[in-house]
């Protein structure tokens, strides 16, 4: 069942079209990514879906309802983490969760949520004293406190250090395990690859691709190139070119480049080991979402 349906969304700000024509749908229980560079229109898109902004054209249905007209009914079932919000400096973590829980008819137990999100030790800490990662955890917990069916997370790891990002990812996986349909806005490729079932890539207000992360990368292609320097003076071409998945082997002195598809790198490594051939400077160039983005838009993806 489609939980969110967006068709031909258009939004202009003082004559400038920020969303040209955005359409996608999100299935129940899915983690759906919206990926794109700065200013692509990601936040505008989700805030239209949340009912915070009114699109100029197009239709939006969330749980079968119109987010502007049926706002009252939807608020109970939709949780939101906005890209830009803060709380009052002096509000304590426990107070914030308790307060937001009271807004809903059937909220989750906020103490349980506080525990789950590692906020229990911080319950007396004031918002103004929290670190970026702690704030982010609190915002996600607040988005979930109403026990929503759908949750929107806009830029949930921007500004976090790598470790905090990883632990936030683990928490998002837990949200998904509860069956909450999740829309995740990001401009990080790795995040989307790690967390999302499907991704819409938005660039300059249009959806340029919509697929699974693996589908976007073309995962079946696997590693594209493997490069190394041979320490022994042997010709590797006859040894390697017959291996499965290999399309070409180039040699320039001791420098060898193997092109292939699928899991050819393992086969190459096994063969070299078998022949007791030592190599250095081994590199495997993997195609990433980043490359996929360049392929889709003809431009590099800059944050």
């Amino acid at each position, binding site marked *: 069942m489609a939980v969110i349906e967006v068709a031909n969304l258009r939004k202009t700000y003082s004559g400038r079209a920020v969303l040209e024509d955005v359409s996608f749908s999100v299935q129940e229980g899915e983690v759906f990514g919206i990926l794109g560079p700065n200013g692509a229109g990601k936040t505008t898109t989700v805030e239209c879906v949340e009912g915070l902004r009114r699109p100029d054209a197009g239709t939006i249905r969330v749980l079968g309802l119109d987010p502007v007209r049926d706002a009252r009914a939807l608020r109970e079932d939709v949780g939101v983490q906005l890209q830009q919000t803060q709380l009052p400096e002096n509000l304590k973590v426990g107070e914030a969760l308790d307060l937001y829980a*009271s807004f809903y008819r059937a909220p989750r137990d906020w103490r349980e949520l506080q525990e789950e999100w590692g906020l229990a030790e911080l319950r007396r800490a004031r918002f103004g004293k929290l670190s970026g990662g702690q704030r982010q955890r609190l915002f996600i917990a607040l988005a979930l406190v*109403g026990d929503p069916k759908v949750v929107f997370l806009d830029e949930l790891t921007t500004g976090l250090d790598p470790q905090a990002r990883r632990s936030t990812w683990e928490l998002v996986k837990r949200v998904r395990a509860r069956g909450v349909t999740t829309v995740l806005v990001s401009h990080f490729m790795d995040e989307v690859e790690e967390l999302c079932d499907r991704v819409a890539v938005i660039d300059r207000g249009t959806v340029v691709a919509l697929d699974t992360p693996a589908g976007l990368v073309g995962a079946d292609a696997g590693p594209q190139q493997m490069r190394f320097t041979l320490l022994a003076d042997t010709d590797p071409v006859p040894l390697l070119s017959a291996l499965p998945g290999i399309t070409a082997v180039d040699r320039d002195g001791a420098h060898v480049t193997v092109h292939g598809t699928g899991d050819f790198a393992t086969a190459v490594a096994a063969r070299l080991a078998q022949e007791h051939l030592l190599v250095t400077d081994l590199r495997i160039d993997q195609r990433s979402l980043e490359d996929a983005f360049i392929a889709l838009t003809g431009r590099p993806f800059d944050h």
Partner: protein
Amino acid sequence: MTALAKLTAVETKLLLREPGSLVSILIPLFFLVVFGASTPKDDTVLLPMGMSIAVGLIGLYLLPTTLAGYRERGILRRLSTTPVKPGNLLAVQLLLQLALLAAATALQLTVAGGVLGIQLPSRALPVAIACALGTAAMFAVGLLIAALAPNGRAANGIGVLLYFPMAYLAGLIQPVAQMPASLARVGEYTPLGAFRAGLAQAWTGQSPDLLPLILLAAYTVVISAIAARCFRWE
């Protein structure tokens, strides 16, 4: 607890944690104690001045800074994604700041009457009417600042910038009797000045001149209408 009760409880805690609240209570009290110690028992100038200072500080300063800050921090916007309307937060804030002002005023009256032995007016109703209209007018000005200021700091700045000239014209920095007559005359037409004048009349018990009260009512209606038109949620 219902959402509104909880919101009120939490906002009360926040207001009490805010240093500005304490300042709004202490400055007029300090003024009262310093000048009240050497004042005759039948003084009718000091308390109206102290009470106007409290209204000025809360209306021009605390109220707009808090509201504009809530908008700037996206708190109103975040609230509008929940089943609770952000208007509830504004209403709760307005009520709490009124309560704070009532507390500041009650404290001044208690200290003036009980400790300093200054005579309080025998008739409460004219005082109450002047207080109600003066507070309404100054809170309307505060709401207008909150509506126009792009962020909390700007609201703060506008509040400070307005407070001193308004307080001076109203005769809160220098008693009206010592001010140049022309400025004192102009001052009576400003919201804060009309409030102090209305209050002073109620104090002396002289037959009330309705002009200050009419002015305050007019200011309230016009300014709050403009504020409501200009207010933005984000």
